[in-house]
């Protein structure tokens, strides 16, 4: 977002704050009291940096604007209304989120901030102290990217656990639990880079999704990345009617980024952990049985009706294994990790080669993803926190073991077809 596109009323308020050390963009729904608590939490950061908290100006009421304007200028924390979610971005949630991130980066640039934070989710915490923990490594220890390590429950953030985190971990060689945040902290160097790449990519539906691009950009540039232990994130309930659209919206920018960063990730051979700040937060795990019938039904329907499409993407050996799996009774159903990993890699390759329409491709992956979730649910339904970590570690190892398969198919898609 260019400065010229900022509305006049907002521009007046912006002029009251000439510069800032830290900009915090709040995309998550927070009321006036919540925003004030965020300010309170950030005031006690070491070195008392000047902080600007951006809140969506469309959500702000006129009287709240007055409150913001009436704040004493001597305060180290200013509340500024800012157009976070542009009207052009209202069409889809992913594009809207991307636009909000761009907007926060643009604001940070305008205020000449040393760092910026994005608060996009709610966590299981009574106080907003966790926001300070996210910001602290940026202002105190000069990290370039601070990513959250939320306390996790076994059936939450499944898309992240099954694809995003292990894939990025294997590709870019750094073990990051939530590479797509959505709560993130970025240094000036990184948000300037993100702004540059977005300007280059253009704006609109084809623009690069900021959230998917942040971690790979930092890792490929060898910037300093750390994780911060945070309380469990509160996830929105599953919208089963739109799960395939969400899958497509999330995976498409990740696969696009794989294409752009191919030279970078093909060089990475091993993966290492990043520094982790704070103490892990323990959460209770449910140990009851779960109903996976809906997901199994989706997989069975996929096997019956989508084989023609999967046949364009997956090699015959994978299709054969899937057909074998479909014949298993529900209680014995287990999708091996290496099979799942090869499926993800084959879809990434088909996305790159545009074997079929990209939207069709990613949406047709939904039954396979749900099959993996069913298998994972079988493995963990009565397990506790330790078993969860072990299970995800096994998956991560499978992703790394399959990387040679990915590299071979990526380099020689026609020749290497097992």
């Amino acid at each position, binding site marked *: 977002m260019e400065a010229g596109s900022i509305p006049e009323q907002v521009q007046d308020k912006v002029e009251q704050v000439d510069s800032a050390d830290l900009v915090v963009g709040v995309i998550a729904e927070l009321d006036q009291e919540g925003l004030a608590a965020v300010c309170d939490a950030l005031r006690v950061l070491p070195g008392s940096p000047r902080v600007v908290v951006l809140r969506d100006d469309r959500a702000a009421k006129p009287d709240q604007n007055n409150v913001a304007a009436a704040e004493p200028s001597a305060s180290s924390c200013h509340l500024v209304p800012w157009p976070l979610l542009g009207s052009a971005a209202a069409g889809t949630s992913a594009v809207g989120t991307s636009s909000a991130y761009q907007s926060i980066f643009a604001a940070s640039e305008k205020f000449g901030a040393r760092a910026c934070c994005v608060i996009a989710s709610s966590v299981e915490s009574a106080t907003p102290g966790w926001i300070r923990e996210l910001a602290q490594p940026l202002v105190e220890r000069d990290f370039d990217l601070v990513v959250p390590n939320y306390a996790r*429950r076994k*059936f*939450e*953030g*499944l*898309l*992240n656990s099954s694809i995003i985190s292990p894939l990025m971990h294997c590709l870019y060689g750094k073990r990051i639990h939530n590479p797509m945040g959505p709560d993130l902290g970025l240094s000036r160097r990184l948000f300037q880079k993100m702004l540059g790449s977005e300007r280059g990519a253009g704006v609109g539906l084809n623009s690069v999704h900021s959230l998917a691009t942040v971690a790979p950009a930092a890792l490929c540039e060898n910037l300093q990345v750390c994780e911060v232990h945070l309380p469990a994130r509160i*996830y*929105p*309930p*599953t919208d089963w*009617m739109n*799960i*395939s659209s*969400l*899958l497509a919206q*999330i995976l498409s920018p990740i696969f696009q980024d794989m294409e752009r960063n191919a030279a970078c990730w093909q060089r990475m051979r091993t993966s290492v952990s990043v520094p982790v700040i704070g103490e892990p937060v323990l959460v209770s795990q*449910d140990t009851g049985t*779960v*109903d996976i019938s*809906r997901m199994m*039904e*989706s997989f069975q*329907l*996929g096997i*019956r*009706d*989508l084989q023609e*499409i999967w046949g*364009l993407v997956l090699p015959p050996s994978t299709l054969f294994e899937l057909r074998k799996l479909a014949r298993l009774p529900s209680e014995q159903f287990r999708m091996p990790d290496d099979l799942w990993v090869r499926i993800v890699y084959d879809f990434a390759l088909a996305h790159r*080669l545009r*074997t*079929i*329409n990209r939207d*069709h491709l990613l*949406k*047709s992956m*939904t*039954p396979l993803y749900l099959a993996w*979730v069913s298998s994972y*649910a079988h493995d963990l339904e009565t397990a506790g926190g330790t078993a969860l970590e072990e299970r995800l570690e096994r998956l991560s190892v499978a992703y790394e073991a399959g990387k040679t398969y990915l590299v071979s198919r990526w380099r020689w898609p*026609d020749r290497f077809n097992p």
Partner: protein
Amino acid sequence: MWSQVKQQLAESTARFLTRFASMVPGLAALVVALLISIVAGCILAAIVRPLLSSMHFDERLARWGFPSVAEWSPKQSPTLLVSRTIAVLVILTGFLIGIAAIDADWTSQLARSIVAYVPNLLGAALVLLIGSVVARFLARSVLIGAVNLNLHYARLLSLGVKWMVVVLTVAMALEHLRIAPGIVKLAFGILFGGIVVTLALAVGLGSKDLVTKSLERDAQKASGDNLEEPFRHI
């Protein structure tokens, strides 16, 4: 009297023989032109076939979004279809050249009417091509969407949509070619209507369970039953 008959007979025989004699070189030219065009067609086909094979034309065509071409092709090979089409076109050209050697007027009339019809042919081919691509895209969209909604009649729905577009496209192409427009309109109406009614019945009957389940879920939600699922994907 008899002498006059003999004279007429001699004259008509002479005329016939003269005409036949004048046509013989033309016929010979037709045969030669045909033979040459057959040889040229075969040679061209023999050149084109390995050339397309080396370019993986069949696979590329499928990748470009035209896998259905393989279904219409001899031995499921679009390469063979293209090479044979080239051969047939060369032979047809040779035949027209041969005909022109016999009667130039007739050939020019034929050529004029063929040329006048070419825009219709091209238009119809374009309509068919676009229709085929659209039908395929929509069928795939509907199939994937319906499977992701756990609809058991996803394939039927997808086929219905595909055939609706195909029937519409073929009717438009035939209309463009001016082939029996009255029959085409009538047949199109019957077929299109038939497909819509079939789909409506199939979907309506098939959706009974879906609607029941959805209503049950809403009722359970309203009564406060715990239907909360533990899975959070994104």
